[in-house]
Structure formats: structure tokens, C-alpha cells
């Protein structure tokens, strides 16, 4: 105890809160913050901004959707060219092939760049998963950053590129279509904010854009005085209970409110009322 510099919560505080007498130390809280994937940025004004990096699942779905769309776009261009060729009875074949090759080139290298620049960091796959690319300082992604992160996508599938080059004599331009993008997977898994190699090099991060669910509390505003002085962390828990009460089912509300039974001594709906009342008292009269 003596060589631990962190202040320990008192026995009383933890005892009634958990009901089991389990002690939640500040060290545990620190661990929780490491587990949390939120990225804290400090703006020049000194305010701390929170952004939420997108994880492996969201990134994976994005990849699949984008690659399918990339392929689809290419097939549409190819099909249109073929149709025009048939309609014109062979005139302008060279021109059509030119369009096909150039669009193949643009799609394979600049698909991501174009969408990220025109649609505020969102490729169609990212629209589907409600994510977007952002600069790691929270500002919109720049064109150079877009180019860098999409150029180095090739490296994600380097283990496929080398054998393809050595044995087939071709560069697998769409190499990352195959599930062999081991480099990419490795980097996403082992970096703190799920960034792939291109993200690290460009200084970007893929973040969630979906608004966190906020349902305003519409219940009673009557304050009920809390019978004991309450620690700051506990006050925040009570406030969070009120803020989130609209999302909870009735049963869950009762279950949570009854945790404080040693404090208020009531059960069921009544306990919920009392806890919401505590929150009103903490928040102050309107």
C-alpha cells in the first residue's frame, strides 16, 4: 500500500456500488482506457477531441464492398465499350480500347484517391460502413495523403506480388483482391488504431462517422437529495444512467437502479425514480 502512489478508493465507496465488495482500483481504470479504441486529439485551442478509429471488421467490410464496386465499374466500362463497338460495327476500336486501358489504370491506382477527395474521405465501401478516412490530426484527408495511402496498398499484397512477378512475369495489379494481403492484415492487427501500412505512411486513420446514439432524457426533473456525499466518479455514473435511460429497457433500468439499494432502500420502479432524481440533483435545478 505504501509504495503505491495511486490513491485507492475507500472501502465504503466501492462496497455499496458493486454490491460484492469488489475493489475497482485506478489501475483497472487505466487498463480500461488502454482497451478503449478512442483516439484523443488536442486542438490548438486546448480542447480535447475524441475520434473513434474503425476496427478490423468495419475495414474488412469496406474492403470487400470497394473491391466489388471497383470490379463492377470496370466491367460496366468494358461492357459499354463492347456495346458501342457492336453498334458502330467496328469503327473506333482503338479509341474504345484506349478508354478501357486508361480506366483500368485509373481504377487500379486512383479509385480510392478519387472517392476520398470528392466525397469527404468516404469511398462507397466506407459510406456503407459509416467510416471515413481522416488525417490523424482530425482534419480532412489531403490529396497527397490520399495518394500515398492508396499507392502503398500494393505493398499490402507484396507476398503475392513477388511470386507473380518471378514466375508469371506480370505485376498483379489487383493483387490485394486476393486474401493474401498478409502485410496489410498484419499492420491493421498490430497497430493501435487499426491503421494499415499506407495509413501509417500517409498519417491517416479510418474513423467512424456514425453519430453516437444520443436520446435526450425526457423524464421527470424533480431533484432528490443524495443522502451521502458522493465521489466524482460515482456522480458521473449517476449522470450517465440518466443520459442513457431512454435506451435501456424497463427491466434493465430497475436492475441497475437496485444496485443502489443500500443507499435508497426501495425496489422496482421506485428505485429508478429515486436514481433519476439523484441525477437531477447533481445536474442542478432548471
Amino acid at each position, binding site marked *: 500500500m505504501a509504495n503505491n502512489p495511486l490513491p485507492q478508493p475507500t472501502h465504503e465507496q466501492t462496497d455499496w456500488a458493486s454490491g460484492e465488495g469488489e475493489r475497482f482500483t485506478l489501475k483497472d481504470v487505466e487498463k480500461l482506457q488502454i482497451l478503449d479504441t478512442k483516439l484523443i486529439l488536442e486542438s490548438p485551442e486546448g480542447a480535447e477531441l475524441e475520434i473513434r478509429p474503425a476496427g478490423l471488421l468495419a475495414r474488412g467490410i469496406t474492403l470487400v464492398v470497394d473491391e466489388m464496386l471497383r470490379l463492377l465499374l470496370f466491367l460496366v466500362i468494358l461492357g459499354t465499350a463492347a456495346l458501342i463497338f457492336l453498334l458502330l460495327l467496328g469503327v473506333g476500336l482503338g479509341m474504345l480500347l484506349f478508354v478501357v486501358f486508361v480506366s483500368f489504370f485509373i481504377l487500379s491506382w486512383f479509385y480510392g484517391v478519387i472517392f476520398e477527395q470528392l466525397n469527404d474521405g468516404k469511398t462507397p465501401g466506407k459510406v456503407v460502413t459509416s467510416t471515413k478516412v481522416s488525417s490523424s490530426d482530425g*482534419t480532412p484527408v489531403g490529396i497527397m495523403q490520399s495518394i*500515398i495511402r492508396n499507392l502503398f496498398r500494393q505493398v499490402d499484397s507484396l507476398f503475392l506480388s513477388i511470386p507473380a512477378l518471378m514466375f508469371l512475369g506480370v505485376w498483379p495489379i489487383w493483387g490485394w483482391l486476393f486474401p493474401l494481403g498478409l502485410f496489410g492484415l498484419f499492420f491493421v492487427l498490430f497497430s493501435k488504431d487499426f491503421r494499415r501500412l499506407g495509413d501509417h505512411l500517409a498519417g491517416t486513420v479510418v474513423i467512424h462517422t456514425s453519430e453516437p446514439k444520443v436520446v435526450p432524457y425526457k423524464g421527470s426533473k424533480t431533484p432528490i437529495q443524495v443522502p451521502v456525499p458522493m465521489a466524482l466518479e460515482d456522480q458521473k455514473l449517476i449522470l450517465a444512467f440518466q*443520459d442513457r435511460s431512454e435506451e435501456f429497457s424497463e427491466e434493465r433500468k430497475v436492475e441497475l437502479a437496485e444496485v443502489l439499494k443500500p443507499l435508497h432502500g426501495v425496489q422496482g420502479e421506485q428505485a429508478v425514480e429515486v436514481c433519476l432524481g439523484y441525477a437531477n440533483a447533481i445536474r442542478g435545478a432548471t
Partner: protein
Amino acid sequence: MKENRFIQTREEAWNSYKTALEAFESSSARQTGQSVEEFVNLYRSVSHDLTVARTRHYGANLIERLNELVVRGHNVIYFSRAGWLEKIYRFYAHTFPREVRKHKKWVFTSLVFFVLPWLAVSYCIAKSDSFIYSIFPEQSVEQYEDMYNPDLRSPNQRFDASQQFAMFGIYIFNNTSIGLLVFVSGIGFGLLTIFVLLSNSVYIGAIFAHLTLIGYGSTLYPFVIGHGAFELTAVVIAGAAGLRLAVAVYFPGQLGRQTALRQGIRETMTLVAGFFTMFLIAAFIEAFWSPWPFPPSIIKYLVGCVLWILVLAYFFFAGRNEISRFAS
């Protein structure tokens, strides 16, 4: 101050901030007469409110709301616009040739990787007639021979502009992709960069030496000299950029490896944009000028030499005296 009082006092400021924010976000600020100064002041005060709300541990809903307002304002304010036309001019007239000179160490290294195997393989083929077959299979050699055989070129051979358009597309796709991959793969310890430089050098050197020896040079060189000025220099620059990245992986120096790499990329992106443009120019020349049968060989040589001199002069002299014009 309790949370609800805080909201009451500040609500009005937040709403006027939000109105201004929406105007700036949709770039309609000028029409609606929003002043930048006022918006920035509001932004500062809302940032302050967010910090205050955090330190006073107000409810999550309030903090979430303020956080969203501040993040949106942050995105509007910290974003720069500059004249793109001037940027492009400055890039080609000034930045690109200067950056190439700045990286002359790597350009030279890349040149060595590209030229030495070329010379070596040429020497080997000059010494031994059958050496070409240890590089290419017999079929490919025959194909190349047919392509450049002066006797097979009938004078009434048609120059099909339509077909050349298709070739233009292929050159853009293939050559530029290889250039980009030479650069990008520098990050994989530079092995692939060097491999591609060496193998291309060996292939080109072998074909050139073989065709020259069997007397097909008169059709080969007028064809390649024009676009070669851009294509070969672009390959060397791509190699230089790739090697620069590889060096950041091997020897990050005082920096962390990631920082060293980021710095390397920041430096080399200029080279990348430059060689990208050069590949496009080379593709155009290769598709429309080089195969054009009308101009006599002497014109092809002349134009080719002029292009080589222009490209080399560009890298040696362009952008040297323009610092004062752009210093402001």
C-alpha cells in the same frame, strides 16, 4: 455552475456558432454575410466550453454535442486552399528538377543499377552469338526479330491511328504502373526495386545488342530514340525514389523507422509526380510519333536528340534561378 445553468447561459452562442458553421461548411458564407472573424471567435469560445464541460464533468450528452460542434469547426478552420494552376507551374518549373538534383546520389545509384547490367549483357552478346538464348526463349527472339526486320516493313504499311490509340492506353497502363511499383516496392527493403531495374536493364540491353548485331539497328533506333528520352529517365528516377525509401528502412539514422519513412515519402512524392508525368509523355510519343512511318530516319534521330538534350537540360538547369520569384 450546474449543468443546466451552463446550458442556459451558453445555448445562444452555440446556436449562432452552429448557423455560422453550417454556412462555412456549405461554402455559402459569403452570400449569407458571415464574418470569418466572428466565426473564429465563436469557435474559440465553443472550444472553451467543451473544455469547461469536460473539467466540470457535465453529462455525456452535452459533451458529445459540444465535441461534435468543435470537431466540425476544426475541420472547417484547419484546411488550406491555394491556387492550383500556380502550384502546377511551380512544380514543373521549379520543384521537380530541384528535387531530382537534390537526390542525385540516388539517381546516380539507380542509373548504375540500370546501365551496368545493360553494358554487361551487351558485351556478352557481342562475344557469343548464342548468349541471347539464355535470356529469352527462341520464340521471343524470333518475335523481336520480326518486329524490327527492315525487309518485312513494306512501304505501303498502314499507320493505323486508331490502333495507336489502343497502344497509347496500354503504354499508360503498363509503363506507369511499373514505374509506380518500382517506387512503392522500395519499402520492401528495396529488393523488388532493384530486381525490376536489373531485369528491365538486362532485357532491353539484350534485345538492343542482338538486333544491332544482326543489322536491324536502322529500324530499331529511330523508333526508340524519341520516347526513350522520357521513358528511360523516368525509370531511373522511379528507381531513385524507390531506393530512397529503402534507405529509410535500412538506415533510419537518428529518427524512428516510421518517421524516417514518412520523411522519405514526403521527399520522394515530388519525384513520383514527376516521373508519372514523364511516363505519360513517353507513352504519347511512343504511341503516335515513334511508330509513324512517314518521317525519314534522319528526322527521327534529330527529334530524338533534341528531346534527349531538352530532358537532360531540364534536369541540369531548370529551377536554378527562380528562388527569388517564389520565395515570398
